[in-house]
């Protein structure tokens, strides 16, 4: 036994050594700073580096720019196929086309916030940092602490294609409290990202018209229930993706509105929230909404939808093809369509408009040659890049006809799909993240998605005041309005939903208590920001 242990131990140490040797040789803890391999080092702008005007197409500058960048993996499966992204074929091709050499650090999704924080704490800050917003917890207040550099003066000159392509209100929304733009956005051309899905086949089967008003919806749900549909409407934990009817009342809990005194208040204390909550409770009582909605995790909720048990639900538009395909496996004749949300008492419909950008790329203040790095990003705003990222390399992954139209076959193999998604979504970085108009026509169900964005989305959705970074919300975190952090409201809404509290009797004290436990200061700050133009209406 003793010898056995010794031998095993020896082998394990050997194995550990081998594993250790396999690690990358470059384990340096210092983030490499930009090194431009030519003259223009002293930071003087203009003149020496080429700055093509927008629309000229892209001409990669002669010098190679080197920089480091951190990007979140977003759990893309492709990284399992290609563990070292820096050797990846598409990334290398991108580098060739832009004459750059990038050290990309892919930060895994698991523990992303902790990892970023630790990285910063140990003094490593890459040249370019990707984050979900200026107040991303992963940044640990970096923007406020002056870690990044303002870009406004430089973008127009060194990234003209981007300047043109990204809508102006997106650039405006990227202004921090001090008025400067600190990041390049992964923007959304449509801030309406979610749709109301409904089972067209069931509507047809029971001779129902597509519902428009709130009453229509209720009628449809009642018929569904009558005819045996298990869940006429289904919700999810924390009321996420459950705000179809909140939208109708203009009481979406993630939004801020002006109250009767012209104060900026969270929608959840507006009077219409009372009606909305009463409505949801009635749905609960009548069995029109899944009783266990607030217990549904994402998998549970999705399972119910694609198993054919649900009549109406809310989901992102881009998931349409996937949802439809999965539904067909359980219910061959099943058909989802995406319709405008219920029209409420005030005539409006739709849920909260999203923030105009999904992610931002921030520039480290200590970066040398930010102009050159901007030129790298500028590539992403060109038509040539759109073609590259969407379709790949001409002759290899697609071909072009004489008239310029593209021959492309959307992959069906999992590995190829992962690769496409990686290149067109992840690698493209600064792009329209709402949908890829180039690729959609080639995708099953893609035209349905495109139609929704073109026809329904423009008039769908609720506008609200985006208060952005608020100090009082750090002091009173329960009063936040972020989708899964609205603790104060959630506690109340859940109880009303289940019937534990009567909304008619308790809503007023709910609002009063809000002001008492810190809401007063929160509203003051929000209103002040609004008056100063720091808190703005969404578009």
């Amino acid at each position: 036994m003793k010898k056995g242990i010794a031998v095993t131990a020896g082998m394990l140490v050997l194995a550990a050594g081998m594993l250790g040797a396999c690690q990358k040789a470059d384990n340096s803890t210092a983030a490499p700073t930009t090194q431009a391999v030519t003259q223009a080092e002293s930071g003087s702008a203009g003149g020496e580096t080429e700055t093509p005007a927008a629309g000229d197409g892209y001409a990669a500058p002669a010098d190679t720019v080197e920089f480091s960048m951190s990007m979140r993996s977003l759990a893309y499966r492709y990284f399992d196929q290609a563990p070292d992204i820096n050797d990846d074929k598409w990334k290398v091709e991108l580098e060739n086309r832009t004459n750059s050499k990038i050290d990309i650090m892919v930060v895994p999704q698991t523990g992303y916030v902790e990892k970023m924080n630790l990285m910063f704490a140990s003094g490593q800050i890459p040249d370019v940092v990707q984050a979900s917003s200026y107040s991303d917890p992963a940044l640990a207040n970096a923007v406020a602490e002056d870690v990044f550099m303002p870009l406004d003066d430089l973008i127009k000159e060194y990234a003209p294609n981007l300047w043109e392509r990204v809508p102006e209100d997106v650039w405006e929304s990227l202004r921090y409290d001090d008025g400067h733009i600190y990041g390049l956005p992964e923007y959304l051309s449509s801030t309406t990202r979610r749709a109301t899905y409904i089972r067209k086949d069931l509507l047809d089967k029971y001779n129902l018209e597509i519902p428009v008003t709130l009453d229509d919806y209720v009628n449809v749900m009642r018929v569904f229930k009558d005819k045996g549909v298990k869940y006429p409407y289904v919700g999810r934990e924390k009321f996420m993706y459950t705000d179809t009817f909140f939208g109708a009342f203009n009481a979406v809990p993630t939004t801020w509105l002006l109250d009767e005194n012209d104060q900026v208040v969270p929608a959840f204390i507006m009077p219409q929230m009372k009606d909305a909550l009463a409505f949801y409770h009635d749905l609960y009582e009548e069995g029109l909404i899944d009783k266990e909605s607030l217990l549904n995790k994402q998998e549970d909720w999705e399972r119910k939808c694609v198993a054919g048990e649900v009549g109406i639900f809310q989901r992102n538009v881009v998931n349409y093809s996937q949802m439809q395909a999965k539904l067909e496996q359980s219910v061959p004749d099943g058909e989802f369509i995406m319709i405008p949300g219920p029209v409420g008492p005030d005539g409006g419909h739709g849920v909260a408009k999203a923030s105009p950008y999904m992610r931002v790329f921030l520039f480290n203040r200590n970066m040398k040659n930010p102009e050159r790095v901007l030129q790298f990003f500028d590539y992403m705003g060109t038509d040539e890049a759109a073609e590259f990222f969407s379709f790949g390399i001409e002759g290899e992954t697609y071909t072009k006809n004489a008239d310029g139209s593209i021959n492309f076959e959307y992959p069906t193999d999992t590995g190829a799909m992962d690769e496409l998604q990686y290149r067109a979504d992840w690698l493209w970085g600064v792009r329209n993240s709402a949908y890829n108009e180039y690729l959609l026509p080639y995708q099953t169900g893609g035209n349905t998605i495109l139609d929704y964005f073109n026809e329904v989305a423009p008039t769908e959705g609720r506008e609200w005041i985006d208060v952005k970074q608020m100090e009082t919300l750090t002091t009173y975190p329960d009063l936040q309005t972020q989708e899964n952090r609205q603790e104060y409201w959630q506690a109340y809404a859940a109880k009303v939903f289940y019937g534990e509290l009567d909304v008619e009797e308790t809503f007023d004290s709910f609002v009063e208590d809000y002001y008492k436990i810190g809401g007063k200061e929160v509203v003051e700050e929000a209103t002040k920001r609004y008056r100063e133009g720091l808190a703005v209406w969404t578009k």
Partner: protein
Amino acid sequence: MKVQKELPPSKRSRSVIRQIYQHKTIYVMALPAILWYIIFKYIPLMGSVIAFQDYSIFKGISGSAFVGFKNFRKLFAYPDFYNILRNSVTIGLYDILLSFPMPLILALSLNEVRSLKYKKGIQTIVYLPHFLSWVVVGSIFVNVLLSPDFGLINRLLEILGFEKVFFMASSKYIRGIVISSGVWRDMGYSAIVYIAAITSIDPSLYEAARIDGANKFNQIRYITLPSLTPVIVTMLLLKVGHFMDFGFERIWVFLSGVNQEKIEIFDTFIYRVGLQGAQFSFSTTIGLFKAVVGLTLLLGSNYISKRLVDKGLF
């Protein structure tokens, strides 16, 4: 046996050194581990100073301002603080009173099983749930057992003629659910310590007792339990030391708007509200607060334990 004579002070210290030298091997044995504690526990512990600072990741520990007890005052001033404290204490107590005895009872029951095969089989099965993550345990309880229409418990209630209950729709049952899920998951795994301890008991003691006419209960009472006392004391006191560390994930999987007032604890609170950037100072502050409570309780229980059963942790 050595006889200690009363030595004059100067000779006493020399005698101490001589004693150490005589048994130097034991001290050498202890050294690597002690070094480890110093390096990997005590040195980082110095970093707890963050709790007394206005810590910024970018300024680092040396660059961040010292603010004394400001973070603690902020913590105590927080409106929900007393509620969270009450939850932590209540759940901690339930955990000790209800969860602690179960593994022991399980070990004792297993010990009485005569068929070795049955015993081993049961032992293996009950140790399984520990390997399910809390996410899975949570969904087993919420979906399989407690679902309002088809959950097993409700179906049982129906058969017995009672009304169905939507357990997760209020905060009434949530503490019980949280504690039971913990018992279900970890009972078999925690029992292993007692099972191992029982095997070390001299079987001849049982023989003698049987000859004297003692029945099973008396055997357990006068032989098994006393022999297990040192292990039980160790396990209990260690649990007390971590009194307010119930565990993040096991609460998180059940936490919802409707029950958070009854089961919210410090760890979930920090995560839940995601205090942009202020997390580190704050969580260190909370960590220190919990630790002080745990230490106090530990010292107290150790004292009581020594008075009661003549055995403590130190």
